[in-house]
């Protein structure tokens, strides 16, 4: 058994063990231990890649190149953070009688299964397997969105599943058309859908069929990534999903879907030149950033605010890739990394706030939370500072890199629009956060929040804060190497 296969087997094993009716401490050990082992194995797999070999399995159906290795490590990291936070999250909700033992077992199985699907997305070199893995993430997350079984959770889950399935239908059609564009060239059997094989043949694919396929694939996987105008499921799903699952969707699914978009973009780039799919990505990315702006200004819910921020960030990454310059691509990969490292903090602190105040709506939490729940509020404020790309944190530098590369290139008008949207988003986000956290606290709040305690959830939130802040000043050299390797893949260099 190779290392790569173990990386995929361990989360599945964790999921299977999660179903067993065992005492709570054993469940928690299993979840966190399994995901920690998965993270370690992912790092080892990426290490193998950095050492010069290319881990493969099943005749190149699974293959780890630079882009895969980066997404693999980031996904496994988020999986571990999510698993660790869910310990405290579930304890709090169990104390309030919100989680039945059956639901708990469902949760313990779904989270590792989701991690497995994310990792499978990251390492699959076969476009068919890629599609299957993305569909798997969708099916798993439906149950996570519907977890609380409220009216609104069912609504969000329904919208998510219908829109997600439709998007995946488009992605499948895109894959089929791509396969059709190489009829007679790609051959039959699994090898015909291998990405490496298709890229090698790219120059001889039928251009019109390929174009149609790429458009469908971008729309389809763009739906999963949450690019505007296909982002409408995102705010609903983020609001309803439990915070540990929310962070998996906001980072894991986003990175995975972006990975799919990049794979199709690279095929189109090799066959048709950089303009076609790059232009589409640039347009979709700009639209996402522009659409997020007004919705952040009128937002009424903490987690929906995070959802629109996530629409903004995926837009930034799409713009970075779409600009086509190597420096901009580097900015996009750097942005993906910093976003992954910072997002858990925002979800965990927002989740803690929502749990303490028993709601995530601004009206219910009320203004001036800093006075009532100081630690969680301060951490959320910190998350807001980092997420909006303020200096000296990482996302400031990645956004600057993209902007600099953009102004040096041919799309100056688009980049200027992009910059103005970013500035507006910055102001809008702080307007909302300021209103919520710093505003004047009512004399006699309608519903006093629960007191803050240093429990498992708070500890993991603090850990997430440390990671988010430290990453601004120090990225491990291995991670930087992975980012550079990913950029080389996107730029088509050996």
């Amino acid at each position, binding site marked *: 058994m190779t290392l790569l296969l173990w990386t995929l087997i361990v989360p599945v094993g964790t999921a299977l063990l999660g179903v067993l009716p065992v005492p709570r401490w054993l469940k928690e050990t299993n979840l966190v231990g399994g995901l920690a082992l998965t993270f370690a194995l992912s790092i080892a797999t990426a290490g193998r890649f950095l050492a010069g070999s290319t881990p493969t399995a099943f005749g190149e159906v699974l293959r780890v190149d630079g882009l895969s290795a980066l997404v693999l490590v980031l996904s496994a990291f988020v999986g571990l953070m999510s698993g660790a936070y869910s310990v405290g999250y579930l304890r709090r909700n169990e104390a309030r009688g919100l989680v039945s033992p059956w639901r708990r077992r469902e949760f313990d199985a779904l989270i590792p299964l989701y991690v497995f699907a994310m990792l499978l997305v990251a390492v699959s070199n*076969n476009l*068919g*397997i890629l*599609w*299957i893995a993305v*569909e*798997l993430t*969708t*099916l798993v997350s*439906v*149950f996570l969105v*519907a977890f609380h*079984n409220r*009216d*609104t959770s*069912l*609504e*969000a*889950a*329904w*919208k998510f*599943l*219908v829109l997600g*399935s*439709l998007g995946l*239908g488009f992605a*499948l*059609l895109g894959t*089929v*058309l791509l*396969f*059709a*564009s190489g*009829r007679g060239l790609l051959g*039959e*059997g*699994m090898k*015909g*859908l291998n990405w490496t094989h298709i890229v090698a043949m790219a120059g001889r694919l*039928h251009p*019109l*069929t390929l174009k*149609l396929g790429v458009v469908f694939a971008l729309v389809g996987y763009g739906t999963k990534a949450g690019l505007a105008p296909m982002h409408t499921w995102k*705010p*609903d799903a983020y*609001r309803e999903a439990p915070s540990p699952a929310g962070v998996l969707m906001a980072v894991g699914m986003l990175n995975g879907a972006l990975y799919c978009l990049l794979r199709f973009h690279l095929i189109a780039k090799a066959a048709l030149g950089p303009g076609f799919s790059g232009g589409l990505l640039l347009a979709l990315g700009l639209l996402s950033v522009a659409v997020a702006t007004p*919705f952040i200004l*009128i*937002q*009424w819910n903490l987690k*929906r605010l995070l959802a629109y921020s996530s629409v903004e960030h995926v837009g930034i990454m799409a713009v970075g890739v779409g600009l086509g310059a190597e420096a901009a691509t580097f900015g996009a990969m750097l942005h993906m990394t910093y976003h992954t490292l910072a997002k858990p903090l925002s979800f965990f602190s927002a989740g803690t706030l929502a749990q303490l105040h028993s709601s995530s709506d601004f009206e219910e939490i009320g203004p001036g939370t800093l006075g009532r729940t100081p630690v969680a509020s301060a951490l959320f404020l910190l998350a807001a500072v980092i997420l909006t790309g303020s200096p000296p944190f990482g996302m400031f530098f990645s956004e600057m890199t993209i902007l600099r590369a953009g102004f040096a290139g041919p799309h100056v008008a688009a980049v200027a629009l992009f910059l103005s949207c970013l500035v507006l988003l910055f102001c809008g986000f702080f307007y909302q956060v300021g209103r919520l956290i710093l505003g004047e606290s009512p004399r006699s709040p309608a519903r006093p929040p629960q007191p803050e305690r240093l429990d498992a959830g708070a500890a993991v939130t603090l850990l997430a804060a440390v990671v988010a802040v430290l990453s601004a000043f120090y990225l491990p050299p291995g991670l930087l190497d992975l980012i550079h390797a990913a950029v080389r893949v996107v730029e088509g260099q050996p």
Partner: protein
Amino acid sequence: MNQDLVILLAAGMLVTAYLMVGQKALFTAIRLYSLQSILLGGVAVVMGLSDHRAHLFASAGLTIVLKGVVIPWFLMRVIDRVGIHREIEPILNVPSSLLICLGLTVVGYRVSTGLAEGAQGATHHVIGAALSMLLMGLFLMVTRRKAVTQILALLTVENAVFLVALGATTGMPLIVELGISFDVIVAVLVLGVLVRRIVDRFESMDVSRLSKLKG
């Protein structure tokens, strides 16, 4: 001969899609979907016979058993449990829906001529029919309000994608097709579970009532 048979079967699938648009009884709509899937299996069988491709038989068997029998049976069970048998008045009435679908068919056929093999013979008709079905599935999705009809619309889109796969390629690799079929059936199960939960909570299957989340 074989070519004509393939065209006939693909046209039959298109006809079932039209009938679905003109249909309000949910049971009949499900039977139409079942018929459509069996016709899709038929296309795969005929193509397998004429090209001597054994793996197409496997995919045909899978299609007929899963989509022709298992999924319709499951959906009927869901309807029986929740006791709702008819689609309410759709947002657009039937005659104008049919007229719009006619337009969508023209668009689908027009697009199919641009594809690699589109200009010639049977493939042109198969892809044309498939793209028309795809557009009609999307149309059904936005104009109907019952949860089960929306599931059927999704499944029609999915059948259309498989028909494109048969027409434009010679079928996807078997393992991929197996995986996709497995995912589709799990998706239908998940949708069924959700419908049950929605009916339990809202005492209705009308998805237009799911409208609390905005902004």
